[in-house]
């Protein structure tokens, strides 16, 4: 790895560790490799959002050309959000693409992602299915996102109705994650989800 990228990441790493947000447990960053090419980020779901109480783990890959090119970031924790792929965790946030600037840091990236959790941009959706639900059935979206937060990110809210629907499908031999995806995609309509899973 280029010296500059490593050196810069080292400093940013320290910056995050010392930051106020870490003190408040809002963001966190850990080394994955000694060479500073890969890091693990964590952001807390912001209050008053369906992500509240959840802890979201991010994969951060630092390119050789950092900081002139953005880090490659994706969600490792599964999340239900219009701007994040529910399948791969990929994020198509502008600052991680063409709006990246060399003055930005790991800290700004983590905080921007946290801001994205507070304010989705449904007009520039990254997951078409989630975005449609966000617009057409906002209440259903909130329940689903909160349910995903509980299932994957350690969120506190349970939903017995959703639980039982998932159990109906797992009883039929479906993996619980696949069941959750199918039900979420069809606004928890058990019949349509079943149809799709067995078609």
């Amino acid at each position: 790895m280029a010296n500059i990228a490593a050196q810069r990441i080292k400093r940013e790493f320290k910056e995050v560790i010392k930051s106020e947000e870490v003190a408040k447990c809002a963001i966190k960053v850990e080394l994955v490799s000694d060479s500073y090419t890969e890091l693990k980020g964590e952001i807390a779901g912001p209050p008053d959002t369906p992500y509240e109480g959840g802890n979201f783990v991010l994969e951060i890959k630092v390119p050789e050309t950092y900081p002139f090119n953005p880090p490659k970031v994706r969600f490792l924790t599964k999340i239900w959000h219009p701007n994040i792929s529910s399948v791969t965790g990929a994020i198509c946030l502008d600052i991680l693409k063409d709006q990246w600037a060399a003055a930005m840091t790991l800290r700004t990236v983590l905080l921007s992602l946290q801001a994205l959790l507070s304010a989705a941009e449904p007009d520039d959706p990254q997951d078409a299915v989630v975005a449609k639900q966000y617009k057409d059935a906002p209440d259903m979206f909130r329940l689903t996102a909160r349910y995903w937060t509980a299932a994957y990110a350690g969120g506190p809210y349970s939903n017995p109705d959703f639980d039982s629907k998932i159990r109906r499908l797992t009883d039929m031999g479906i993996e619980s994650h696949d069941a959750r995806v199918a039900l979420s995609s069809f606004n928890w309509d058990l019949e349509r989800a079943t149809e799709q899973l067995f078609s």
Partner: protein
Amino acid sequence: MLLDYSLCLIQVIFEVFLPSKIKMSTSLNVFIKSNTGNTLSIELDPKWDVRRLKENVAPKLGLSPVDVKIIFSGKELMDSIVIEECDLGQQSILHAVKIRHVDKQHLRDRTDSEGSRPMNETLVDWQLSAIDRKHLNTEEDREREKAQFFVYCSSPCKTMKPGKLRVRCASCRSGAFTVKCDPECWDDVLHMNKIRGTCENAICVESHKDGSQFAEFFFKCAEHPSQGENDQAVPLDLVKSNIKDVPCLACTEVKNLVLVFPCKEGHVTCLECFQIYCLTRLRDRQFSSHPELGYTLPCPAGCADSLIKEIHHFHLLTDEQYAMYQRFGTEEYVLQAGGVLCPQPGCGMGILAPEDCRRIQCLSGCEFVFCRVCRQGYHLGECSDQDMDTSEEPVNCQYKVDPVHANQARWDEANKITIRITTKPCPKCRTPTERSGGCMHMVCSRPQCGFHWCWICQTEWTRDCMGNHWFG
């Protein structure tokens, strides 16, 4: 071990004795130009003061020492100045001017304080405000406070070197010219008619009786002996010595030499990081093609209106990298002029062919013959993977090959392979675009194109792509 030690010792001896020895014993060979058209070549000892120089030179010009003033780089030098303070190099030109009658009336008042210190001594660094200047008190600070310039020396050094600021008359280009005041910023130096002065050249004295000629500034490379009055170098005005200890924006280290971007914030990178920044943008073809400035870059912090105006700054790249810069710049020029790039891997030659000509041959490159529309080998009839109008018979025309494309530097093959794996050409302009992140929504990285396209379909990005395979 012993060998190592003795090698070290030799090195130390060289380092300790050589440079100082050269300075101590070398006499300076300079030219003295008079305003009567004489040029003398003289050897002088750098320890001489200006009075001693006058005593040496005046008789050779048939003048008495008190009738002569010595002008160098826009300043009349005072008698007490020691030559070595003047930033003179081998073959530098000094001007010996006979004091005019008007001046002579004041001759008896002329004292040693007449004239001034050389410009290199008086010029303070333009990065410093008046307040900053007051705070520099020690000898070391004052040494740092002096303006330092950097130039691109195209010949013979072919690299960035320390530079020297020189002055001449803007109308007759004579160096026998004194400025009324020192320039105070880069604008004063880079733009015409900013600083007034007095020209000693007889023709000029006639046409500007008020003595209000303008100064013209230029730069020389400080490293090689002067090769005459036309030996100039391009100032790299963004390269500065880091007197304010600003950390590099990219690596966050405080380096001695930095590049200060022309944005409002004046963002700073060290020269090493600047090079990496250029290379990164170059490899992704993300330079901007500006109609007046050329192929250039903005501040890496994404500031508005921050394009580098003097493209000689890109000579901070290595020769090989600079060749790539020139090649891509040329290709960008070809594309903007409606030309095409040869699609053959490893070639990429820019070709300017008439608009209506579908059969294109890479004449000055690999000789590949291809179809303008699909960029595949040339074929009759429809392109295999694209709709196109084949109603008109393809005309076999002669091609003009891009004349400016002088440079044959090629991407190294290894690079080419990795690039092919993670990039696909933009369907509109064929610029390789890297797929970063998970989604299939691509935006052409070439700023002039910016086409939105789908990684899978390799056509324009549509709502269908969004619904069907946003994430593959």
